[in-house]
Each structure stands twice: as C-alpha cells, then as structure tokens.
C-alpha cells in the first residue's frame, strides 16, 4: 500500500524507542534479561480457575459496556478498602481492556484540538502518542534524579498554561520506581485545586509500593472531582495477558469515556472479568506474597548496583530500579547495546521513556534471585571497564 494513504497523525509518531533494541535482542541467544515489564509470577491458580469455570458455564457473551456490575461493585469496595476513595459502581466505574485503554479513553474524552497534556517523564511510553492521536499537545515535565524522580509543585506550576487540560500522574512510576508520598502529593494538590485541570492518575503499580502504603491523589477531597484513577489487574495479580483494567472518577468523565469504549471496544473480555471478580475478592494474600517477594529482590538489585559504584536511588514502587550510568561515560543507548553485545544482559535504555532518561537504564527485578545475581555479576564485569 502507498505510505501516503496512511493518516499523517500516525505516520508522524516515532516508533517506540524500545523497538530497535527489541530487534537486536531477539536475534541473540542465551541473553539474561532485566528488560521485562511484567511480573514473573503466573496468575494465581484460583483466579485462573475462576476464568476456566466461567468458560465451562458458557459465560462467553458480551457484558454490559461498563463491565459486569458485580465486578464494578468489587472494584469500588477495593478502592474504598485500599485507598479510601468512594465511588458509585453504577456511574463512576468503567472496566477497560488494561489500564492502557483507560489512558487512551481518558485522553480522548478530554482533549479538544490544541489542549495541552502535562506528562512527567521518564514515564510509560504511551502517554505522548495517545495525546497526539487525540489531537492534544504533550508537554513534557522532566523530573529529576535529585528529587528521586518525583514531580515537584514548582515543576508542575512552571508548565501550566491556559491551554493545560490535564496532568498525567504516573506513580508508582515505570521506569524509575519512584513514588509520590503524601507530602509530595499535598504540594501538587495545592497547585491544582480549584483549577480546571484534570488529573489522570495512572496507579497500575499501586499494590507494588514498598515500606508504606500507596496514596491516591483522588483520596484528597479537593481533588476527587478532578481526578480519574486508572488501575488494573496486570501488575497486582500478575494478569498482564488478561487485559483487565478500570477507570474510576467523576461521573461526567466516566460517562464520556464509556461512550468511546462502547463504540470502540464494546466490553472487556468476559472471561477476564469473571477472573477479576475472584482476584478482588480473594486475591489479597497473593498480592501480599508477591509484594514481599519483589521487595527482597528490589533490595538485592539496588545494593548490587551501588556495590559496583553506580548511583542508584532507592525506588519504592513498581518492580524497576533506575541506576545512573553516567559515570561510565556512555550514553544509555551505548551502555545497553554494548552490555548486550559483551555480556548478553538486556536492560532498557532510560531514553526509551523520555529524553530525560538519558544517563539511566531501567532494570526490572521481576526475575528469580539466581537470574538477578548472574545479571549483576555480568554488569559488574562490564562496568569495571569504564569506571
């Protein structure tokens, strides 16, 4: 087909920064990877079993556009129980195909041509393209290592213009592992309250918060009407392939998102929805077990990088560490490509998550301790040559 027939909006979007790297990696053998963005656990069996049972009972038809009522009820109970945010399951919750769909829907439901969307970076790869596809203008806020990649009130304020429509708040953060503590959020709330700016709070890693509880910005009463919470099952319950997420927020926004969802998607997969009910009802112990397991591996990886002389702040969320590799004199891309060629270890260049990720690499600890130790050993051999 002729290239010019494609929408210029789409052709104008650069391919994912991870793509090129992915192509190199897939051709190599015996690679130890720290590059994966999903849990190393299987979905707990009782959850899978519930999905199987729903199939056996022939529950294979469309559900309501918003998702099964029973599931939406469980979602509201969960958000109340875990994060002290109350929603009406009938009008304020939408079950989506992964939290990724939620990002797209929220942006499409909010953006008028030329509206600006504030996007703290480094962050997940879809915010910018989804903003552009929805006709918006991404405004990147580069968060800093010295602030442990938290968004500060000053950085936020400096980027607000009359055109600002929304802020994406991606914490706990992929790729940095940064979280926003209560006191950090309080300052953000001070800036945003009573302004016509919506917060799209991507909390997909909320359950993977270490040494404290995740705080949602929606739990601040002054922000409740201004915030849409995006969450899901992928990270908390190791359910990435089920594609299950949800959005919860003010009625008008959820209604608008539901409108797009009902035409574009119809409904989230029914099997996954039944499994999701089981996860929310009986999955707390699994989440606890996985969190505790990640926590030990997190410390191991952070210590490993520090021992080899690299600066590495302590990430308190998600399952990534984000060590600084500037000391080696290499760029993120060079570091990762050479590390792969010389030691067969795959990590992701920080620049895949925004220009300000330069000088960092993302390493996931969703791997066995044995795997992590071998990777650390190899990286140490590599780093030694440069520092």
């Amino acid at each position, binding site marked *: 087909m002729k290239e010019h027939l494609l929408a210029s909006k789409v052709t104008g979007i650069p391919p994912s920064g991870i793509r090129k790297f992915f192509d190199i990696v897939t051709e190599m053998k015996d690679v130890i990877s720290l590059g994966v963005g999903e849990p190393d656990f299987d979905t707990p069996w009782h959850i899978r079993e519930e999905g199987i049972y729903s199939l056996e009972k022939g529950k294979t038809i469309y559900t309501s556009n918003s998702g099964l009522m029973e599931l939406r009820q469980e979602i509201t109970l969960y958000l109340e129980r875990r994060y002290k945010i109350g929603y009406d399951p009938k009008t304020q919750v939408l079950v989506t195909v992964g939290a990724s769909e939620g990002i797209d829907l929220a942006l499409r439901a909010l953006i008028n041509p030329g509206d600006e969307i504030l996007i703290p970076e480094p962050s997940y790869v879809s915010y910018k393209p989804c903003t552009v596809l929805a006709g918006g203008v991404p405004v990147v806020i580069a968060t800093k290592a010295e602030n442990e990649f938290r968004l500060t009130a000053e950085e936020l304020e400096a980027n607000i213009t009359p055109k600002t429509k929304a802020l994406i708040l991606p914490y706990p953060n*992929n790729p940095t592992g940064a979280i926003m503590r209560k006191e950090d959020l309080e300052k953000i709330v001070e800036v945003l309250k009573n302004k016509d700016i919506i917060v799209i709070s991507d909390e997909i890693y909320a359950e993977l918060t270490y040494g404290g509880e995740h705080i949602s910005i929606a739990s601040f009463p002054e922000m409740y009407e201004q915030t849409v919470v995006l969450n899901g099952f992928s990270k908390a319950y190791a359910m990435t392939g089920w594609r299950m997420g949800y959005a919860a927020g003010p009625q008008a926004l959820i209604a608008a998102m539901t409108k797009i969802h009902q035409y574009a998607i119809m409904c989230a997969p029914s099997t996954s929805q039944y499994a999701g009910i089981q996860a929310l009802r009986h999955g707390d112990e699994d989440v606890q077990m996985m969190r505790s397991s990640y926590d030990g591996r997190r410390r191991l990886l952070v210590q490993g990088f520090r021992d080899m002389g690299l600066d590495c702040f302590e990430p308190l969320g998600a399952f990534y560490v984000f060590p600084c590799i500037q000391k080696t004199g290499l760029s993120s891309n060079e570091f990762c490509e050479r590390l792969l060629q010389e030691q067969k270890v795959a990590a992701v260049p920080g620049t895949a998550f925004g220009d300000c990720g330069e000088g960092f690499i993302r390493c996931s600890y969703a791997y066995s301790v044995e795997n992590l130790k071998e990777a650390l050993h190899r990286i140490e051999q590599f780093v030694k040559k440069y520092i």
Partner: protein
Amino acid sequence: MRQKLLEILEKDSRLSVEDLATMLGVQKEDVQREIETLEAEQIICGYHTLINWDQTDKESVTALIEVKVTPQRGEGFDKIAHRIYNFSEVKAVYLMSGGFDLTVIVEGKTMKEVALFVAHKLAPLDTVLSTATHFVLKKYKEYGIIFEKGQKDERMIVCP
C-alpha cells in the same frame, strides 16, 4: 524479620547470609544470629534438597499407609507414633482426624520391600489395629514444586 527470613529460606536455603541481609534490609550479623537461634530452637530443622527421583535411575517406591491404633492410657498416640517414626524406612508420620489415626509415609526400593516392612514391622505392633497401604504411582508436585518439565520463562525479553 523472623517471619520473612523463614519464608525466604523455606523457598531457597542456599542464599548466602549476605544476600539474605540485603533482601531483608538488615545487618549480616543479625541474620547470622537469627539463623543460629532458629536452628537452636529447632524451628529450622534441616536443609534438604528436593529431588525428583523419578528422573533418575534409582529404584524407589513411596507408600502412604493408613494406620488405626489403640491410644494408650497416659500416652495418647505419642508412644505408638514414636515406635513407628523411629524406623528408618518411615519418612513421615502424621496424627490424623477422621477415619484412621496415623498417616505413615514409607519409602523402599521395591513394592515388596515396603509390603514386607508393613507386614513384619508395622502391623504386628501391639497397639496397631489395622493398616491400609497405598502406593504412590506418580508424584506431580512436592513441597510446592511442580515436577513437570519445560516450565520456562515465556515473557518477551524486552517490553515497556
């Protein structure tokens, strides 16, 4: 720390004290001391290797034996359990609720050897009323580990 340390060790007892200390966010010396205490208190009772013997040439059979006994005055089931668990063929003994009293797990080289053990050693014990021997045909899962080949990481090597 105790609970978490035990949870980690239960899954992998080969981790070094250094790694355990890092994973728990405590000092190496504290981990060392805690492990020694746990051993002294016999909360940690041993460090074993889980082997799928079916994958080797070694001949062995496992049997689960249901045993009904008469509890003894003043001793309950403990005395008879003691007489049973001291046999080296016996790998585990549990006191049960329900239709019988003791579960005895016995290992031997052949079915005949196990049968002879039951006939000559176990059944004749004074307080043993009856036994029912069930041989294990295949072990699918042991101590939380699935004995199935080909469980490998199928995740993409790099993804956002």
